[in-house]
């Protein structure tokens, strides 16, 4: 992974910066270290920054499972954008949360995801995670129908050290299921 040249000056800081990065990974609200050491130490602790983002993304999925779309409030930046399949781009946290409301109001649907890969800029202020999601719908007979797909989330580090999602998007891994034949002809009109 590309390391910024400035990281070489901080070669002796590895132990100290690992301690800081571990502390930051423990929770989202840890205050950022003073700006200059953080810039260099973030580059040196790239694997730790990546692990911290993966952990955050996994925790995001857990919290959404527990609290529904209300959990988005804590994870999305105000100016975030969302790129859903079969819908136009959604702009702003408020609009994003509104667009997810029907999904979470429908208690037959469950959405979870798992990060598989992360990367962070040398300056530690921008990163991304990508992984797999699963959307499971339980039908009237209780049978689960699962749709899998992939997603990417881009994260920006805030002044208080926490990460917030500034872009989220994904799409399914397989073509959409063919529409079921409708009982009434009118329902089949494009």
């Amino acid at each position, binding site marked *: 992974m*590309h390391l*910024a040249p*400035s990281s070489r*000056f901080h070669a*002796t*800081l590895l132990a*100290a*910066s690992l301690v*800081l990065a571990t502390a930051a990974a423990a929770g989202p609200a840890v205050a950022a*270290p*003073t*700006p*200059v*050491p*953080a*810039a*260099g*130490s973030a580059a040196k602790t790239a694997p730790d920054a990546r692990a911290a983002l993966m952990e955050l993304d996994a925790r995001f999925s857990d919290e959404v499972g527990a609290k529904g779309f209300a959990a988005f409030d804590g994870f999305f930046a105000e100016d975030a*954008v969302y*790129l*859903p*399949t*079969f*819908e*136009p*781009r959604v702009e702003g946290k408020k609009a994003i949360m509104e667009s997810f409301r029907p999904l979470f109001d429908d208690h037959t649907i469950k959405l979870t995801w798992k990060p598989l*890969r992360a*990367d*962070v*800029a*040398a*300056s530690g*202020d*921008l*990163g*991304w995670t*990508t992984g797999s999601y699963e959307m499971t719908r339980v039908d009237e007979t209780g049978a689960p129908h699962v749709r899998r797909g*992939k997603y*990417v989330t*881009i994260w*920006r580090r805030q002044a208080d050290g926490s990460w917030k999602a*500034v*872009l989220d*998007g*994904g*799409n*399914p*891994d*397989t*073509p*959409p299921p063919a*529409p079921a034949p409708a009982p009434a002809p009118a329902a*089949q009109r*494009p």
Partner: protein
Amino acid sequence: MRPFLPALPPLVVLAALVAACGGSSQRAAREELLAADERFAAEVADKGVSVFERYYAEDAVEMPSFQPLIEGKSAILEFYRPYGNNPSFKLTWKPAHAEVSKEGDLGFTYGHYQATTVDEHGTPVTRVGKYVTIWRREYDGGWKVILDGGSPDQREAPPAAPGG
């Protein structure tokens, strides 16, 4: 951190100055990345998706809709080869926004694409959608794509009934 860095104060000052000037240089970096994405789109509009070969990093990932994730430049170029061989396939896009990290090594753009082709009856088909591209700046200063993905903005109309 400071107690560990007795020899570093000059760098602290320098980096603080760079950070303070960050506003305009960040704006310039965003403009530069937007221009790179626009240039990429212009070259593809002109020469087709074979241009991807010059823009994708070796470890790039592609997230095409309705297909599994594709990992690695070779596999991605292989995926796009049939589109490149189809003379009626045209792909264009336009970035709406770019962001770049403070040290300028990572950035992303997002915007809209338009893909046109002809179906098996010779009827032109147009799909419009949104995309995001994540970029890494290489040592030579050029930007390379490390992640690209998109999705259509709406469902396709169901196919017309045969003979209809």
